[in-house]
């Protein structure tokens, strides 16, 4: 009996459907024409047309982060593929599961410097978890199966599949493999029970314990387990930027964000702890400050699915390689069996210290009659919190103010570029989040610098009537860099004063709603109008130029050297 034959393009789409993909982001071009033709002929997968390939990958990442599913992007060869590098690097850093399909020139022309040819496997090697060049249509379904498996297991990340145009056209039967056979890839999920036992014993005896919750807790969907462990062991929890929302900010035991712009209390707690229970964090330099002085006297228990993250920057006393949800579940089981009674007397002084540290916060800055960015963000938060919207951010001062002033009680609500720090990430990521959620609205908190990096996506937003509310904290500067110049480079504002178009008119020209806000009393009416509007909105908040982000630990300083105002500098 003859089996039905399909083109490579059809096999790709059928495989995506098998993986449960319903939406993809992309941009067509010469060598992906057969794929776009196959897309045209089907209705199982919806394609969102962006305006720049970088935005396609960021949107796929926003989609993945908001939904917990895999983000998929499709681009053409050469320039299309090259434009995705920032997006890939961003997803690789922050551990977001993505599949990027890049078209490639005809396999017979590879290496011949063909039109729109680029060595995609070579270029993307260091910014993705794995990549493939498909050389035979017979391998296509297997490769897609492997790619999804690699992207979604271990430390999640982006996988690139480079497909030459002749493979898209070649015919073969379709049978999607049931299993994956990768001898060199066996991420350890279990976590060693004896190590967990040792960790528990150490935590029982700790006088000054703290939990650091990182992005891994979100990736592993382990918020409930974290809450149970922290509550039963009576340990305060700080989170990293990527760990925002993994432990509810509303709880008394949540000390908020730690790190360069973390809370005074969170930083002091970590700096003075005798046992640090680090869960799913890489200990990046933005968290540790001066590495030599970080946790010098503390025992460090470190859970991570990626063995590379353990003892890379901070030496772990008790390393536990495994999936966080599994490891914390083992811990809860052992707690259930244990006769140990958690004794808070040991920690009484510690809780007192923490209560004292909590009182020290950044001192408000009133500099001129212009709007304060912090006031704007607090007002936005208060007004929108009932809707619990997803909040995306770009990168810079506005990002830190958002992380500091918004309270998150659930994971996957803050979508921000953590590791790579990509300006221009927030807007397309918000589009991806909107595509995943399909209802309500998504806030994108932006700066006047960042928003101009992917502003072309306003058209994508208008096309699909995505309700992304861009709140532009417009202070006329690349604020975070300016802040460093003020403090460290003698106020030499070298190339950081940045001009912007009239965002209101710009929004209108795209068919979006533009609103300018210059006074405090205009903030809420603007938000009301924005939420009512059926489509994307740009609110231009004209803010004070020289407001600073505090608390601030200068780069290279120990994390307990926290500056709370300009006067302290």
């Amino acid at each position, binding site marked *: 009996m003859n089996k039905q034959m399909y083109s490579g393009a059809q096999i790709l789409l059928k495989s995506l459907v098998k993986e449960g993909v319903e939406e993809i982001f992309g941009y067509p071009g010469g060598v992906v024409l057969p794929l776009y033709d196959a897309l045209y002929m089907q209705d199982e997968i919806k394609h969102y047309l962006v305006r720049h390939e970088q935005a396609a990958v960021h949107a796929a990442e926003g989609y993945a982060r908001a939904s917990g599913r895999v983000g998929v992007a499709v681009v053409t060869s050469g320039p299309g593929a090259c434009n995705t590098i920032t997006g890939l690097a961003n997803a690789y850093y922050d551990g977001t599961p993505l599949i990027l399909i890049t078209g490639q020139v005809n396999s017979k022309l590879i290496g011949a410097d063909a039109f729109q040819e680029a060595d995609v496997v070579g270029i993307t090697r260091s910014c993705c978890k794995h990549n493939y060049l498909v050389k035979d249509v017979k391998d296509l379904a297997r490769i897609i199966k492997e790619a999804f498996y690699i992207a979604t297991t271990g430390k999640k990340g982006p996988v690139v599949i480079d497909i030459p145009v002749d493979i898209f056209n070649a015919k073969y039967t379709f049978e999607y493999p049931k299993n994956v056979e990768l001898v060199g890839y066996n991420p350890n999920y279990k976590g060693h029970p004896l190590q967990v036992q040792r960790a528990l014993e150490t935590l029982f005896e700790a006088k000054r314990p703290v939990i650091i919750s990182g992005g891994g807790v979100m990736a592993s969907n382990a918020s409930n387990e974290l809450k149970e462990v922290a509550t039963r062991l009576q340990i305060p929890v700080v989170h990293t930027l990527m760990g925002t929302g993994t432990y509810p900010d509303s709880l008394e035991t949540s000390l908020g964000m730690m790190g360069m712009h973390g809370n005074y209390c969170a930083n002091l707690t970590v700096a003075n702890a005798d046992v640090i229970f680090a869960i799913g964090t890489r200990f990046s330099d933005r968290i540790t400050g001066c590495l030599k002085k970080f946790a010098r006297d503390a025992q460090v228990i470190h859970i991570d699915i990626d063995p*590379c993250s353990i003892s890379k920057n901070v030496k772990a006393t008790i390393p536990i390689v495994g999936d966080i949800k599994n490891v914390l579940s083992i811990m809860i089981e052992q707690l259930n069996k244990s006769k140990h009674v958690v004794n808070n007397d040991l920690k009484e002084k510690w809780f007192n210290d923490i209560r004292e540290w909590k009182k020290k916060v950044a001192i408000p800055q009133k500099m001129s009659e212009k709007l304060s960015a912090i006031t704007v963000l607090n007002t936005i938060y208060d007004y929108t919190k009932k809707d619990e919207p997803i909040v995306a951010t770009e990168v810079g001062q506005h990002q830190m103010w958002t992380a500091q002033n918004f309270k998150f009680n659930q994971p996957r609500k803050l979508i921000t570029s953590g590791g790579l720090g990509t300006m221009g990430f927030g807007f397309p990521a918000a589009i991806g989040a909107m595509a995943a959620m399909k209802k309500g609205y998504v806030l994108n908190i932006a700066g006047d610098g960042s928003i101009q990096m992917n502003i072309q996506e306003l058209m994508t937003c208008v096309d699909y009537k995505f309700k992304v509310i861009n709140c532009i904290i417009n202070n006329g500067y690349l604020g975070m860099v300016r802040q460093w110049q003020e403090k460290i480079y003698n106020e030499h504002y070298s190339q950081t004063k940045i001009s912007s178009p009239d965002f209101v008119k710009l929004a209108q020209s795209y068919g979006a709603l533009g609103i300018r806000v210059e006074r405090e009393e205009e903030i809420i009416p603007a938000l009301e109008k924005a939420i009512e509007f059926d489509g994307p909105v740009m609110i231009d908040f004209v803010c004070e130029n020289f407001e600073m982000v505090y608390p601030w630990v200068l780069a290279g300083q120990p994390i307990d050297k926290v500056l709370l105002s300009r006067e302290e500098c």
Partner: protein
Amino acid sequence: MPTSHTISVLVTNEVGVLSRIVDLFSGRGYNIESLTVAPTLDSIYSRVTIVTRADDDVIEQICKQLNRLIPVIKVANLTLGDAIEYEIGLLKISVNDENRAEFMNIVAQASAKIMDVTEKIYTVKIDGDEKQVQTFAELVRPFGIKEFVRSGKVAITKSGQFSTFKNRKDELKLSL
């Protein structure tokens, strides 16, 4: 203190696997002192032997990072165990009538082997560990070394722990 380590890496024999390893070293600022690659008995796998110099904690990172690569099946730091290390040096040396006897004496004592002889040039093979090859080169340096070609290091454990695998199941068991 940076020390020299011999790391043996078993990989699937596929296009680009060496680039992945070399990129990892250059991208993370690690240093490769020598490198050899060849297929194993079962040609679907290759063995890569890398000599690198670094602090112990960096070596640990290197091994972890290598393990993270998808085509890498197993990584072993042979410096830590009981291993035999071997490399080859090929040298072209000027020899004349006056010093020929002395030269032949050194060659014999070092168990080197003469591979080719022309009127003025002797080509010699020396094998052994790094130190033996180095010592021989130092000994014949006064004669005048015209060319010195050195292989990277290959190494093998004395116990049978890190052998090539006959089938994927055995290999899976061992790679865990």
